[in-house]
């Protein structure tokens, strides 16, 4: 199911429905990935986006461990332990795939050749700062992987997360309190309750799901604009 944005380009409140499910959220992210893009999907929830990319969209998936043209997860006889994704899960290759070593794979990111990456997050700030690699909690073992390289290198960084943590604390914040992954790098934020654009001018609500801009504004400590303001 694809939820269409407003054709007139105004902020849309999708009412009479609940928040987006994880699967619907992945579909909304997939909807916004331009045809023919080179895209990296982060570990975890972002990998679900691949299930919603139409085969004719010409999107080429990059995996940080050295491959363009990654196909779906491998099954049964297809499983080959030399062919895994960033989450170490066996995957398949599509026609036109290529392999390269790690320094090339990350040069591809850092050099600005990737169009879009989709990442999860603990927090995103109103300036687009991203915190997604480390809780900073005592005893937590820090592990960054390719998160900083992707956040810094991809032309567009899309983040998928719930807008509030389980205890109701907003994850879109004036200032990240978790250790940062990258500064002013997030351009779009996809959440269960709303889709946002983030620019140096601030945060703009593109769509809401099962809630209104006014209600979100009352729950977030961040100034929200709408497309109608732009």
């Amino acid at each position, binding site marked *: 199911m694809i939820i269409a944005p407003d054709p007139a380009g105004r902020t849309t409140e999708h009412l009479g429905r609940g928040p987006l499910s994880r699967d619907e959220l992945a579909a909304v992210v997939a909807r916004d990935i331009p045809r023919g893009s080179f895209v990296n999907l982060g570990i975890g929830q972002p990998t679900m986006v691949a299930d919603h990319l139409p085969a004719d969209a010409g999107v080429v998936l990059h*995996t*940080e*461990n*050295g*491959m363009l043209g990654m196909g779906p997860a491998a099954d049964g006889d297809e499983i*080959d*332990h*030399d*062919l*895994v*994704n960033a989450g*170490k899960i066996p995957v398949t*290759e599509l026609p036109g795939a290529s*392999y*390269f*070593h*790690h*320094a090339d*794979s*990350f*040069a591809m*990111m*850092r050099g600005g050749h990737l169009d879009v990456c989709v990442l999860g997050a603990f927090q995103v700030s109103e300036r687009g*700062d991203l915190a997604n690699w*480390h809780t900073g909690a005592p*005893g937590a*073992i*820090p*592990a*960054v*992987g*390719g*998160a*900083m*390289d992707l956040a*810094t*290198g991809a032309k567009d960084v899309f983040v998928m997360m719930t807008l509030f943590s389980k205890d109701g604390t907003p994850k879109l914040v004036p200032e990240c309190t978790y*250790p*940062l*992954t*990258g*500064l002013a790098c997030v351009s779009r934020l996809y959440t269960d309750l709303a889709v946002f654009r983030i620019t140096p001018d601030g945060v703009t609500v593109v769509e809401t799901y099962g809630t209104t801009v006014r209600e979100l504004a009352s729950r977030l400590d961040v100034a929200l604009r709408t497309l109608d303001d732009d």
Partner: protein
Amino acid sequence: MTAVLGDPDEALAGIADGSTVLISGFGMAGMPVRLIDALIRQGAADLTVVCNNAGNGDTGLAALLAAGRVRKVICSFPRQSDSWVFDGLYLAGKVELEVVPQGTLAERMRAAGAGIGAFYCPTGVGTPLADGKETRTIDGRDYVLEYPIKGDVALIGAHIGDRMGNLVYRKTARNFGPVMATAATLTIAQVRRVVETGELDPEAVVTPSIYVDRILDLSEAEAAP
């Protein structure tokens, strides 16, 4: 001249205590498990290990860690669902950890192999991983100064080698192998089989023989009694 060997212990002879050891692999793909097993038997201790992950399960790098041979791990992603050996040692304060963004880890080794003294990298600017590092603004963008990581030894998991020492890899098991092979004083590769010189397509060689000192031929090692 590359030595082609069938005995893992011969392949790992002469590794000194205190060495920096680069180990290829992303998870288990491209992990040179037979070479690591031989390194454990060889006995070198007080090692600094550079690897993307800090071991999976109980074999390979995890076994080297469990044997207490590793003083420090330099990696991008130690924490995994099956990294219990590292997790236990780290939380007990028995191993040091330097976390490096994955692309910076690869590029620091590339720099070592390519004779680059240091480089300015945009990754990590404004984050805790840039703390204490020199930064510089170039053409309006901020960068962090990063230094090379040079290995005393590189242990590489490749697919096929020839008698000259040329290597080809297979699919995503290539990962850090080609970069690490350039960045160490002594590069040792394990390959699934060795072919005669001339049998590999020169256009398809990924690691040229100049970087490879010893090859362990697994087909011969498996066949050995």
